[in-house]
């Protein structure tokens, strides 16, 4: 044997020894590694709209006055309770005592005033400034009492305060929250390895029920195939929103995993440019709705795991009514309506497709379905940045596929300028009345009228609710089934046997 060959064997021996040593048996676990598709741009939920920010910090690191739970209900957060004046314009919040930030800063009404004033300031870069727009003043009669006065009643105010955009931040740390978030939650931020993962550790000084996990790692895996293999190889304990629905049958058959399909707030639409011919004609919009077999679409793109909708509203939301049957699949009727509206067979349209698989895969299926009723569709794939600029900002498009992930966002149909250009005075007055309602039953009635109005006008073709496909280790408990707001609330997560 030559010296080189011996060296080679020696190296091989070391390699195998190390490989063997690395697979030591696991101990009783109190840590969690959670997979996410996208890495967040910064970790401050008050300075960016990305869902990925909230999927790390919401409820875990940062808390607001109110808190939205896994069922979408608004409950107490840092405010233990509150009262509303009869005119719906004044809220009096009783703040929790003995709350401190991770750096030791005490939480009191001064923090509430600072946080909300910062969010509504002229130079604020809060992505949901609308939440704070009704606020007229914030007063601190005592350190543990906050009084918020509104310019007008706002039916969604307490709900809005539960969003990630309205969390409490401290003056000393607010500017650094993008890279070093400091909140009041049961987990504190420890490390961010850019491009790879974020780590949180249990905060011993938490005011409420301590977290059962000692450490949580959020690991970023963008590629669906890589996500699947990381899960199968055990590198990751859970994916709360798994990006590869096509391998669900395989995962369901694997006893190591729980597969839990819930719903997000993502209303997936074939959005239409209502200002552009022929989409300004209600017959054409209805024809498109009849032409699309939404069950086949969901089977082809989401492995069947999605709920069909008929309006811009999801079953998680209050006052939901099922309008999915408004325009059943009926290609003959679609053709008749198109002919009636004077749309000649063979007319070409473009369909803009942003990057997510629901759009790219869905686009091909929808193009084929529209082909069936005589329309030709040019698919135009685009990056997010291009989509936001061309479709969203400049409204230069025929059709696009997009999931609106903001919860309870009927407001966009009442806006003067919005990319799909829906204008209906009847809807706008319904919305104006809803916004100022303080009586719950009347509010629900108006919400239902708005859903019906949209289903009748069909400004966009309403397709389905984007599913939340949760896949996690079968011994893991306490992760959210649904996504009523973007979050991975791991405060109640634990390992069973």
């Amino acid at each position, binding site marked *: 044997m030559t010296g080189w060959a011996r060296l080679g064997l020696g190296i091989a021996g070391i390699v195998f020894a190390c490989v063997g040593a690395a697979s030591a048996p696991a101990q009783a676990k109190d840590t969690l590694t959670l997979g996410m598709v996208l890495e967040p741009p910064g970790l401050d939920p008050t300075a960016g709209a990305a869902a990925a920010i909230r999927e790390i910090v919401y409820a875990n690191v940062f808390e607001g006055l109110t808190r939205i739970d896994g069922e979408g209900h608004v409950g107490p957060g840092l405010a233990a309770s509150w009262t509303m004046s009869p005119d719906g314009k004044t809220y009096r919040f009783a703040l929790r005592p003995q709350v401190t930030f991770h750096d030791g800063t005490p939480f009191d009404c001064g923090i509430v005033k600072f946080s909300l004033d910062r969010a509504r300031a002229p130079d*604020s870069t809060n992505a949901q400034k609308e939440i704070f727009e009704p606020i007229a003043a914030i007063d601190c009669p005592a350190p543990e009492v906050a009084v918020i006065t509104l310019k007008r009643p706002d039916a969604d105010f307490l709900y809005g305060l539960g969003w990630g955009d309205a969390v409490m931040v401290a003056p000393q740390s607010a500017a650094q929250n*993008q890279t070093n978030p400091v909140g009041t939650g049961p987990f504190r931020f420890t490390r961010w390895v850019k491009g790879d993962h974020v780590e949180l550790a249990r905060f011993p000084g938490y005011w409420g029920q301590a977290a059962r996990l000692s450490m949580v790692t959020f690991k970023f895996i963008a*590629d669906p195939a890589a996500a699947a293999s990381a899960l199968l190889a055990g590198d990751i304990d859970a994916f709360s929103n798994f990006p590869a629905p096509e391998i669900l049958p395989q995962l369901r058959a694997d006893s190591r995993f729980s597969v839990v399909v819930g719903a997000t707030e993502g209303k997936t639409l074939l959005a239409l440019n209502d200002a552009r011919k022929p989409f300004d004609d209600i017959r054409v919009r209805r024809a498109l709705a009849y032409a699309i077999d939404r069950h086949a679409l969901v089977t082809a793109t989401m492995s069947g795991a999605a709920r069909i909708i008929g309006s811009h509203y999801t079953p998680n939301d209050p006052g939901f009514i099922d309008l999915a049957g408004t325009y059943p699949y009926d290609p003959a009727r679609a053709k008749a309506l198109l002919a009636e509206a004077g749309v000649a067979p063979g007319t070409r349209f473009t369909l803009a497709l942003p990057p997510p698989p629901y759009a790219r895969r869905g686009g091909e299926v929808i193009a084929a379905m529209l082909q069936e009723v005589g329309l030709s569709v040019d698919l135009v794939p685009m990056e997010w*940045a291009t989509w*936001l*600029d061309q479709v969203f900002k400049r409204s230069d498009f025929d059709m696009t596929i997009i999931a609106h992930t903001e919860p309870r966002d009927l407001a966009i149909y009442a806006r003067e300028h919005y990319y799909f250009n829906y204008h209906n005075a009847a809807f706008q007055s319904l919305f104006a009345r809803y916004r100022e309602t303080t009586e719950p039953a009347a509010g629900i009635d108006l919400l239902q009228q708005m859903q019906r109005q949209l289903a009748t006008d069909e400004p966009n073709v309403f397709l389905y609710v984007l599913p939340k496909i949760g896949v996690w280790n079968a011994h893991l408990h306490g992760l959210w089934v649904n996504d009523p707001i973007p979050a991975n609330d791991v405060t109640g997560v634990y390992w069973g046997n």
Partner: protein
Amino acid sequence: MIPYLGGRLVTLAVTLFAAAAAVFLILDVLPGDPAALILGVNARPDTLAALHHAMGLDRPAAWRFLAWLGGMLAGDFGDSFTYHVPIAGLIADRVGVSLPLALLAIALSTAIAIPTGVFAAAQRGKSADTLAMATAQIGVAVPNFWLGLLLILVFSVKLAWLPASGFPGWAGGLWPGLRALLLPAVALALPQAAILARVTRSAMLETMGEDYMRTALAKGLSRATALWRHAVPNALIPVVTILGLQFSFLLAGTIIIENVFTLPGLGRLVFQAIAGRDLIVVQDLVVLLAGSVIVVNFLVDIAYVLIDPRLRARGGP
């Protein structure tokens, strides 16, 4: 040698400036507003304007270009829009993944390709040669991302020897880091090795037909000694040329492979930064990557001189 080096440095500076100006112009024309990407679909116009101001995007393009260029010259790479940290540190972390990966891939591919090529040439026309070249042909045809997925399926999912994705960092020691880079390096190296082996073989065949080989054999050297002492050194010039070219392809290849293996390297940073319109990061990276390709070409030129004494006598290539 000095004027030669000086000329090279001027070329380097001009190329880098051209690359910087080109990428700035392209990004400026490209639709997409980084502030709109950050604030999403519910943002109000005044919020967008406030963020534009905070990011400096309300200034004229020429001002931004010169400010960035001035910063680069002073050693300040700027701050990332998405990560909110200085870009120099961001890139340094990523180089710590991509450079070892590229070096490992080149080392692997050379270690496989050159012996295979020499062996195939020596065995020309025999079944060993046919087998080696047929394997290489397959290697050329296989895309590296597909090979990467295959390696993950076999070594991570089935055998559970190596991690499927991610990178633990070098802080935990050399071996955990190398372990994470092994599969991606193999996925990058094998297709490159296949090309390199074919080039080595044909370069060897050419030199083996030269007169000096016949002379070497005539003066009594064994076939193996003649091969290693005379044929291989002469065959190295085209091999080094291809290696230099492969380095550029390797940089492109890491963009795909780092996504397949979810490695936080430069390739993935480029990809993310373009999608997220993290403009200054893209600009910095293009300049860095263009610079490294130029530097590698320069090293290849130096390698020619080292390998071939005839070039040394002429005073540089």
